[in-house]
């Protein structure tokens, strides 16, 4: 809600002069809320400064590796920490192990693939659940809402624990063979769905674990948005003889489309940055492209957390990790930008029905 500009600041200019009051500028500054503004400004610039400092540090640290790998970073599939016990070589003043190669394509694709699978599973499930929750009686909706809050608040390491010890083996033993037998038989999809079903450490389990983390975000936001659709609009749809499905498809969802998109982007951001849970279930296969739903793979975040110890003894490896961190930041920032543009576009073409009701 907009607070009229008159109340902004409260500095000397906008306030009516009190009769008999002091006119010294210090006094005005003090009474105009100067100290609070100064302290507030000091606090408000901190996040921005931290952000700039972060980027500067990462870019400086990443420059040697960027020079070393060039475009191979994005195109090559081999990530090699080098012949650890070979004779060190020097590049650009850095002493490092010979034979190092930094192809991050499997990690980049792995990050995108796990998040994609997570969203493909999470979005329909969250929307379906939210649509149902919105019509449940108040008490039941409260209990289910509690489950959503629980899932949202559970530390990701616990979800990783559950994924590694419980979900992974069950998926490998029962769910994956089912998928391999059905979708895997479809010609053209055999390469991705039809291979050997692995041991529970891989792309599918990682996607499932991420989906569990993303569902609460999308579901609770969607539920609030659905509750916010005006009753009048929905009653109008019913009056026209629409079934539930048609009402949802034609009225409810388009009404809240931009909000849902925002929630999906929030979920995507969570999935892209998730580290510990994925590290526990992905199989940590440094140079394996995610060509197969069940095979072991790796994401950027999982690589950083598993291999930081190896990297820190070798300055070029640390530089490559800084480059990886930059790549991950670029991916998340790009998704945010694309999403903001999409949301604006979707809001713009929303149904004219309802605006102003």
């Amino acid at each position, binding site marked *: 809600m907009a607070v009229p500009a008159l109340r902004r600041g409260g500095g000397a200019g906008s306030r009516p002069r009190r009769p008999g009051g002091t006119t010294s500028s210090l006094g005005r500054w003090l009474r105009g809320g100067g100290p609070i503004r100064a302290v507030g400004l000091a606090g408000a610039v901190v996040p921005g400064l931290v952000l700039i400092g972060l980027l500067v540090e990462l870019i400086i640290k990443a420059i040697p590796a960027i020079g070393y790998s060039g475009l191979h970073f994005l195109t090559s599939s081999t990530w090699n920490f080098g*012949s650890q016990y070979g004779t060190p070589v020097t590049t650009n003043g850095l002493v490092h192990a010979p034979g190092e190669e930094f192809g991050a394509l499997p990690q980049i694709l792995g990050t995108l693939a796990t998040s994609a699978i997570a969203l493909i599973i999470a979005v329909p499930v969250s929307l379906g659940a939210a649509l149902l929750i919105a019509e449940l009686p108040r008490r039941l909706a409260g209990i289910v809402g509690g489950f959503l809050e629980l899932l949202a608040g559970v530390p990701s390491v616990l979800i990783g624990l559950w994924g590694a010890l419980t979900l992974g083996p069950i998926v490998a033993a029962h769910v994956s063979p089912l998928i391999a037998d059905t979708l895997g038989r479809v010609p053209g999809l055999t390469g991705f769905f039809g291979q050997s079903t*692995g*041991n529970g450490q891989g792309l599918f389990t990682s996607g499932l674990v991420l989906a569990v983390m993303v569902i609460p975000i999308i579901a609770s936001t969607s539920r609030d948005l659905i509750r916010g659709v005006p009753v009048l609009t929905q009653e109008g749809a019913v009056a026209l003889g629409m079934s539930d499905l048609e009402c949802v498809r034609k009225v409810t969802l388009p009404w809240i489309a931009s909000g849902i998109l925002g929630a999906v982007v929030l979920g995507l951001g969570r999935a892209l940055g998730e580290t510990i849970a994925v590290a526990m279930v992905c199989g*940590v*296969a440094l140079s394996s492209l995610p060509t197969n739903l069940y095979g072991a793979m790796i994401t950027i975040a999982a690589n950083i957390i598993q291999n930081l110890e*190896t990297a*820190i*003894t070798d300055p070029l490896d640390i530089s490559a990790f800084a480059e990886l961190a930059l790549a991950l930041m670029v991916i998340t920032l790009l998704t945010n930008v694309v999403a903001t543009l999409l949301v604006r576009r979707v809001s713009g073409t929303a149904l004219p029905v309802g605006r102003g009701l």
Partner: protein
Amino acid sequence: MARRIRLAGTAAILVPAALLAAACSSSSSSTTSASTSTSAPASASASAAATPSIPAAPSSGTLTETGSSVMFPLVSEWQKGYTSAHPGIKISTASTNSGTGITDAGQGLVNIGASDAYLSATQKSDYPTLENIPTGVNAIEVVYNLPSLTAPLNLSGTVLAQIYDGKITTWNDPAIAKLNPGVTLPSTTIVTVHRADSSGSTVLFAQYLNAQDATDWPSSLVASTPTWPKTSGALAETGSGAMVTGAASKVGSIAYIGDSYSSKISAAKLSVAAVLNGAGKYTTATPAALTAAVNSFPPAPASGSESLINTSAAAGYAITGYEYADVNTTQSSTTQADLIQNFLYWAITTGSSPSYLGKVDFVALPTPTFNVAVNLINKITG
């Protein structure tokens, strides 16, 4: 005046100590060849010579340790024993991996980093003041999950390299059958289990594969985190304990695990293979085999870094190595340095008696390496 008395007093102690040290070291070199196949602490005479230069423990203090999961069970026993002998000292231990041991010790984040792998040239150039002090001898066992077999399988470096390479995929492959005549091998798929973290066990295992089969396992794959060749259904586990759990979870698995986990390995119904050594014999990791292996190599150099892989002693175990305590020679204070020196010396003497080493199936250092270790310990200053 007081200072002169103090100097004289110090000299009075040091001179006879130096003479004693000279006398004892000449006698200890003659006992080198005599120290064989016992797990008793090597040459008490050498320790008597070295003791005067090891400072006493301060009355209170803390020690922090992290690193190798293979060495962790022994470090836990050392923690209990040392803190009961020195009640004012507190020791914090953690089981992570050898890479963490090296990097944390190098950066001064912990006092002692445990590692199964000696320092590489790159690591030495990154941490010039870091030294690796041998504290014991351990072995890496090759463990597999085939409940139907009773006798241990014979496996060679070539076969193991081809298994982890993806060239051999089932247990009844002719190459494995050739090494095990008369054994009915199941047709189960082989599931390779490897370490996901920066592991010294991986280094030792990879060095063995490279020593026996440099074509299938080139030296570019000898590292704490090598780029593992892709094998179907491979499991990546973090830490030696997880290797046991991982291998136990899937029939047909094969894994490489330090012998300090022997009791857990047998409790999980896993079998240990007999591994081909450099003399063409198949041996398992018994204390006698470890001692034979370590004695077949020349004495450790002054830096302490030495490979004990692929011994040519007929009774020796092939995948053997020193357990290292990585310590920064420049510590934050003299008291801290004294504490570390005292602890490490205790570890290689009292802590290397059969009551400790027997629990983890390690063997004690041979005499020459013991002396090298003492010299390295003396280099730690505050």
